């Protein structure tokens, strides 16, 4: 078991506060730094880059819509996690390569983390090739590895750099932080089947063009309409999509949630790939079910053994769904660990290995890890 991490929190958007916190964990003997900060901090690019480049320790992390500290979420501020174990950080910048080139790139780039089995992955959520990278990374590292992580970035689609590196703040990359200690993880979401199955008859990556040979949007609207007593308004999608994601069910009954984020009136674009010929369902949930699922996630992790650092990647869309009740979920997760500070981020897409072992990009889910 690794020694406890040194955690410094500030709810200030000030770069000086961040700088102080970093200096503090360095003085306390940290061997690496994991930063989780809020997009609303709007750090000055030049100043933050100067600070990151000057940092003498291996540095990693991301800028997220919100951060989580001790069972509460914050829209501004920063968490500095001083890692007492030295992380090995690899920044994969060329993830848009074609499959054969990407495979070769990962082989070459991953040499120094090849023997590791436990990883935190932080990706730029706006990079559409992240999921393909995750597939290839899993192919290379193999089953049996443990992974937690999430997508950093801004929901307003601004193309800003969001990943912290020793070379500065960068965009469009996936960062793999290999830890020389075991990570335990637990995942859950609380979503249930509402309607389906529907055959994905046409799709490409994130875009689902047709279900049962009909435009996806039409089918989606039909299902929602059939369950509503009043006629749907023109902008029904914005209201209902956060409540009714799509789900792909595995042979063993696990639901992989795919969050529809936008439409052109014909297709739906999801956070994550939806393969053609797969079966999808319309999902539903409630605040209670989601909180119950989160409690289960925490209990599950608790049973896996002792822990020093609790790191949570909770989907930002759960925040949208739950509103103010999101803090209930966070408190529910913190509750079984009274002596351990829960830290984390509200992510745009979560990353974890599923029970069968494969590393997947998840939506509307809770990924809790400890190390």
């Amino acid at each position: 078991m690794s020694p406890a991490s040194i955690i410094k929190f500030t709810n200030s958007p000030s770069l000086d506060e961040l700088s102080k916190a970093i200096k503090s964990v360095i003085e306390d003997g940290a061997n690496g730094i994991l930063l989780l900060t809020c997009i609303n901090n709007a750090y000055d690019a030049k100043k933050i880059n100067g600070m990151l480049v000057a940092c003498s320790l291996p540095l990693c992390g991301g800028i997220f819509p919100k951060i989580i500290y001790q069972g509460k979420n914050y829209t501004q501020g920063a968490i500095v996690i001083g890692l007492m174990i030295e992380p090995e950080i690899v920044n994969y910048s060329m993830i848009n390569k074609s499959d054969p080139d990407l495979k070769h790139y990962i082989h070459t780039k991953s040499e120094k983390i090849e023997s590791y089995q436990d990883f935190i992955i932080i990706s730029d959520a706006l990079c559409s090739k992240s999921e393909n990278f995750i597939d290839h990374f899993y192919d290379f590292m193999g089953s049996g590895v443990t992974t937690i992580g999430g997508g950093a970035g801004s929901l307003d689609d601004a193309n800003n750099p969001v990943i912290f590196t020793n070379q500065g703040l960068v965009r469009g990359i996936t960062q793999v932080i290999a830890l020389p200690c075991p990570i335990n993880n637990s995942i859950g979401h609380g979503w249930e089947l509402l309607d389906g199955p529907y055959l994905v008859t046409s799709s490409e990556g994130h875009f689902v063009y047709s279900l049962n040979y009909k435009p996806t949007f039409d089918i989606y609207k039909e299902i929602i309409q059939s369950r509503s007593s009043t006629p749907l308004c023109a902008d029904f999608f914005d209201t209902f999509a956060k409540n009714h994601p799509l789900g792909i069910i595995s042979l063993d009954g696990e639901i992989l949630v795919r969050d529809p984020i936008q439409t052109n009136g014909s297709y739906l674009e999801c956070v994550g790939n939806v393969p053609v010929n797969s079966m999808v369902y319309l999902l539903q949930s409630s605040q209670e079910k989601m909180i119950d699922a989160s409690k289960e996630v925490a209990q599950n992790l608790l049973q896996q053994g002792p822990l020093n650092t609790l790191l949570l990647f909770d989907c930002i869309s759960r925040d949208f769904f739950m509103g103010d009740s999101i803090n209930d979920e966070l408190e529910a997760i913190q509750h079984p660990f009274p002596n351990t500070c829960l830290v984390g981020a509200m992510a745009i897409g979560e990353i974890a290995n599923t029970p069968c072992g494969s590393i997947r990009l998840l939506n509307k889910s809770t990924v809790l890890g400890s190390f």
Partner: protein
Amino acid sequence: MNTAMHIMSIQHQLVLAIGKDSDLKKMLHQFLRLCCLSLNSTNCHVFLVQDKNKNPVHQKSKDSSVKLGHYLSFPMKKHGLLASHNQPLANIVNAFFTDNLVIDVIEYESSLYHLFKIGDFGVLAIERKQQLGEAIRNALTPVLKKLATSSIASINHRSLVLEIKTRKQIEEKISYQASHDFLTGLFNRMEMQQRIAKAIDNCAQQANTGAILLINLDKFKNINDVMGYHVGDKVLRQVANRLRNTVRNLATVARFDGHEFIVLLKGLPVNPLEIKSIINGVIADIVFAIEIPLELSEGRFSVSCFIGYEVFNDTNKSVQDVLKNASIAMYEAFKKGKNKALAYNSNMSVQLNEHITYTQEIKQALKNNNFELHYQPQYDHLKNIVGAEALLRWNNPLRGYESPGIYIPIAEESDLIIQIGSYVLKQACADIKKLEQLDLPDSFKQISINISAKQLAKHNFVQTIISAVEESQISPSRLKIEITESMMMGDIELSIESLEKLHRFGVECAIDDFGTGYSSLAYLKRLPATLLKIDRYFVTDIHKDKSNTAIAGMIIELAKSLNMTVIAEGVEKKEELDCLVQLGCYHYQGYYFSHPIVFDKLQMAIKLKANKIAM
């Protein structure tokens, strides 16, 4: 959940991945990845029958003990261990394959391996934590059939691609060999000729100028002769590399022939001054690059070169014209000395044509017996004729007697010198035979003939002399051969061996023009020569020139110490003779005594001397 639809969906997803790519590995990778995702498996593997090069084969093996080899997995590892190194897994798969089952489920170390036959040449292993239901296992049967068919197609496709690739490689190799020099990797002559032809056409179309530089390595033959061809080849390769690097991007280089290289410059300006400036720059770079000593494991070698070049800017000149002109210019540069470069001009052709015509005339003269031997008697201090030197004269029907200084160097450039030498030898032997029939005075020793370097270097040189002597039935001691110092330096050991053989046979040897060459005195001692001839350069005005007196004196002393006779050439004055006598030289040849005379006159002179002695 609609299980039937779910299973169908999985079937379709998997089938869709099959045959997506004609490359077997890519296709199987895609298939295994989807297997993992849709069947919730931890790892999926394919094992195939493979040939000795690890290439998959689909033919049913007659050998029942054939083993499947690991071909591909998704993901590649489990707990950090590569699936290809997982021997227990290979054993499980091979046991299943040997048992000739179609589907099986085997538990091993908390994993369940679902094994499916791929045709009769492979196995798909799906690793899961929970067992796949019977329905899904059965649903995979048609998928596996399709996988087998597609795999066979891919394997066949790969074989075909390999065959095409191999054929293409062979074609490329043949094409490369046809256009490149095997030793240096430069273009060869044939390719260069084609490129010159194109360059000539382009010049005409684009109104610019081109040029070719023909480069010959000076005295390269010496490296081959002394160090062997393997060293010569290394030198050629290094020179080729230097040329390539020197003219990189500016020009094309080829090995033209032996130690000749050719450089093609294209797209030069039209202005002659600009052209000259560019070419001179290239030549300077080439000469500089070649002159840098070559460092080989066999030692350090220095080579130099001479260059001839020709410029072209229209289609009036053919490839052969351009090459011929550059070659003529190169020959002229050679005559000027090392590291010389000359541009072709039409006067060179005129001179060359004259040269060729002259060579033809020499040939004709040999046929028509226009050559004669004249003899310059050699005397001792008592004015006895001790011998005579045979001197070749060409009585040209049109121009009268030609100077040997003109036709001998030309004959030496070709094998004509051998034919002339043969004539001289036979004629001299015939004349000696006639002399032997006279009552020769004891003082008369022999007739000497001059031998050329080419004659001496010929493998049958000794036998040719012996045969001539024997066929003429003369005493070998009546014939003396004269060679120069520098001639022997080509291959001194061979020269010594040849001269020793002749010495044993009875034919003596004289060293001609002594003092002007670069003889090593150590070698001189080993030569079986009996006579040293002091060059006329040291004899002329010897009585006035102290340094000549000193040199001649040294040569005379040297001859004495080596027990050799010494004879002074070119004695024309009484004062010179007196001086030579004083220095201890008692044999002479020169106008003071006699000009070269025809054989009849020689006979008469000898007879006259003999009669005087008898009286």
